C-alpha cells in the first residue's frame, strides 16, 4: 500500500508545485483507473489494452477537470480552489457510483499468482509488481524533470512562475500538463493496485488523504522524499494494524500526519524551501 500512497503523493506534489492547488480529487483518479480497467477487461479487452485505455481516458479527464473548473478561477484564494476540487471530486464519485454501483472490483494478477520465494520469505507477485512499477514511475518522473527540456520548463514554472513566463515558458499550459500527468500516474497506479486491494467507488477520498500524508511527510519538495514518506506510511499502517487493531489502521496513519505537521511542518525530509519539486 505504501507505494500507492507514494504515487498519490507524487501526483499531489506535481499539481501543487505548479498551480498551488491542493487537489482533493487526486484519489478519484486512482479509483477511475481501477474501475475503468476492470470494466474494459470484463468486456473482453486484453489486460494491457484495458489499462492503457483507462489511463488515456483518465488523463483526458484530468485535463478536462483542469480546463473546466480549475483554470477559470485560477488566482482565487486557496480555500476557493480547495472547495472547487472537492466539488469536482464529489461529482466524479457520484457519476462513478451511477455507472458502477458500490461493489468492489477486481482484476486477475498480472503475471500469475505463484508466490515468489526469496530465501524463505514469501512474496505476493502482484505486490512485487506494484512496488517495482512505483519505483519505475518515480524514477521516470525524476529523469523527466532532470533531463528533458519540458521537464525543466515545468520545474522553472514551479520555482518562479513569473520569471518562467519571461523566459517564454507558457506557465498556464504547465498547469494543464500537471493535471494530465497526475491523472495519468494516478490511473496507472489505480489499475495496478486493483488485483490486490479490490477497490470500490468510495476509496478516492481516503487515498487522497493518505497521499497528502505521504507528500507532507516527504516534505513536498523531492520525489524521493515523497516515495520514502509513502513507504513509511504503509509500514506504519501495517504495524499499527498488527499491534493495536486493524480497525484503527486509518487513524494511526493520520495521527502521524498531525504529529508531523505540528512539530515539523516542512516534512521530515524536507528542506527549508518546501513546496518545490
Amino acid at each position, binding site marked *: 500500500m505504501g507505494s500507492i500512497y507514494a504515487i498519490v503523493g507524487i501526483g499531489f506534489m506535481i499539481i501543487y508545485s505548479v498551480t498551488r492547488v491542493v487537489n482533493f480529487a487526486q484519489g478519484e483518479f486512482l479509483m477511475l483507473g481501477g474501475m475503468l480497467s476492470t470494466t474494459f477487461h470484463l468486456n473482453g479487452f486484453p489486460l494491457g489494452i484495458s489499462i492503457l485505455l483507462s489511463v488515456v481516458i483518465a488523463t483526458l479527464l484530468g485535463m478536462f477537470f483542469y480546463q473546466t473548473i480549475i483554470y477559470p478561477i485560477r488566482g482565487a484564494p486557496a480555500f476557493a480552489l480547495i472547495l472547487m476540487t472537492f466539488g469536482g471530486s464529489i461529482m466524479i464519485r457520484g457519476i462513478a457510483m451511477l455507472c458502477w454501483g458500490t461493489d468492489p472490483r477486481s482484476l486477475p494478477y498480472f503475471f500469475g499468482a505463484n508466490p515468489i520465494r526469496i530465501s524463505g520469505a514469501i512474496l505476493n507477485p502482484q505486490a512485487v509488481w506494484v512496488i517495482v512499477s512505483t519505483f519505475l514511475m518515480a524514477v521516470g518522473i525524476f529523469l523527466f524533470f532532470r533531463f528533458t527540456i519540458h521537464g525543466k520548463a515545468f520545474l522553472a514554472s514551479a520555482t518562479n512562475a513569473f520569471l518562467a513566463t519571461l523566459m517564454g515558458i507558457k506557465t498556464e499550459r504547465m498547469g494543464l500538463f500537471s493535471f494530465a500527468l497526475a491523472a495519468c500516474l494516478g490511473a496507472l497506479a489505480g489499475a495496478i493496485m486493483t488485483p490486490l486491494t479490490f477497490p470500490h467507488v468510495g476509496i478516492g477520498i481516503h487515498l487522497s488523504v493518505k497521499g497528502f500524508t505521504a507528500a507532507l511527510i516527504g516534505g513536498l519538495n523531492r520525489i524521493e522524499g515523497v516515495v520514502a514518506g509513502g513507504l513509511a506510511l504503509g509500514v506504519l499502517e501495517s504495524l499499527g494494524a498488527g499491534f493495536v487493531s486493524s480497525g484503527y489502521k486509518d487513524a494511526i496513519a*493520520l495521527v502521524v500526519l498531525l504529529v508531523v*505537521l505540528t512539530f515539523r*511542518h516542512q516534512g521530515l525530509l524536507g528542506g527549508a524551501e518546501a513546496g518545490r519539486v
Partner: protein
Amino acid sequence: MTLRGIPETNRLRRGAITLFVILVSGLPLATKSTYYLTIGNFIGLYAIVALGLALLIGYAGQVSMAQAAFFGIGAYASAILTTKYGFNPWLALIIGLPLGASIAGIIGIPLLKLEGHVLAVATLALSIVIYTFFVQLRPITGGYDGIGGIPRLSIGGFVLSSDLHYYYLIWTFVLIIFLLSSNIVNSRVGRALRSIHPFFGGSEIAAQSLGVSPAKYKVQIFMVSAIYASLSGSLYAHWMTFINPEPFGIFISILMLIMVTIGGMGSLWGAIIGACVIILVGELFRELVPRLVQGAAGEIEIIAYGLILVLILLFMPRGLVSAPALFKGWAAKTMGRVRRVSP
C-alpha cells in the same frame, strides 16, 4: 464603509432580524405536520454549524473538514455523560463545548501559522480519526449500534419532549448564535480578521506590519466554530435521543462546506440560507429521484451537490446573498446604463 452608512445598515439589520424571528416563530403555526418540523429542526442545527464555518471561511480564509466531527463530539459527549454517568443534560451540553474547542485549539495553534492549505488536510485527517473512534470504541460509543435512551432537555421542570419544543429551542439558539457571530464580526477580532482576508481587500502582510497577529485570530475563530458545532451536536443528541456514527462522517462535513459556499462565504445570512437550500434540495431529491430514475438512490444527490458547488464557485463566488447585486449589475448592463455595482 463610511461612517454615515453605519446607522442605516444597523437599522436594516435590525429590520431583517425582526422579520426573520417573526417568520421562523410563525412557521409551525402554518403546518401541523411533524415532517416539516423535523426538516425545520435539521435546518436550524445545520445553520448553527454553518454560522461557525462561515466565520472560519469568510473571515479567517480557512477550510475545515472536521465540522461534522466536532458536531459528533458534542453529540457523543452529551450522550455518554447523561446515559453512563447520569449527568444533567444541560451540564453535559456545556461540558461538550470546551471539549470541542480544546481539540480545535490543539490542532489550530501549530497549524494556523502555516500556509492556507494545511488546515484543510489536517482537519480531513482529524475527521477520519474521530469517526474511527466513534465506530471502534465500542464499549464507550456503542460502535455502529450507537447510544440510545438519551434524556430530553428540560427547562425548570418542564421537559422538552415534542418536535415543536425542540423547534423553538433550536431556533432560539440559532438566533443567539447569529447575534453572537455578528457581534464577533463587528468587534475588534472581526476587524482584525477582515484586515487579513483577501475578500475584504485585506492583506496578511500589511496587517502583520500593523501589529495584527493573523494566527492568533484564526485560532480563536476556529475554536469558536468548533464550539458552535459541538453545541449543535448536543442539541441533536437530546432531540433524537439516539445517535450512531453515521451523521458525523466526512460527507456531512463536505455538505456543511457546500452550505456555506452556496449561501455566501463570509455572510452570516448566507450560512442560514445555505443550510435551508441544501436541506430542502436534499429532501426534494429524496422525494423526486426514486420516481424519475429507477434504482437510483444517493448518486444523483451527490452529483447534484457537487454540481451546485462547482457552479456557484464558477459563477457566483460570493454565494446566493450576492444574487441581488449581481442581478442589479446585469440589469444595469443590459439597460445600457454605466454604473458601478459594489459587491
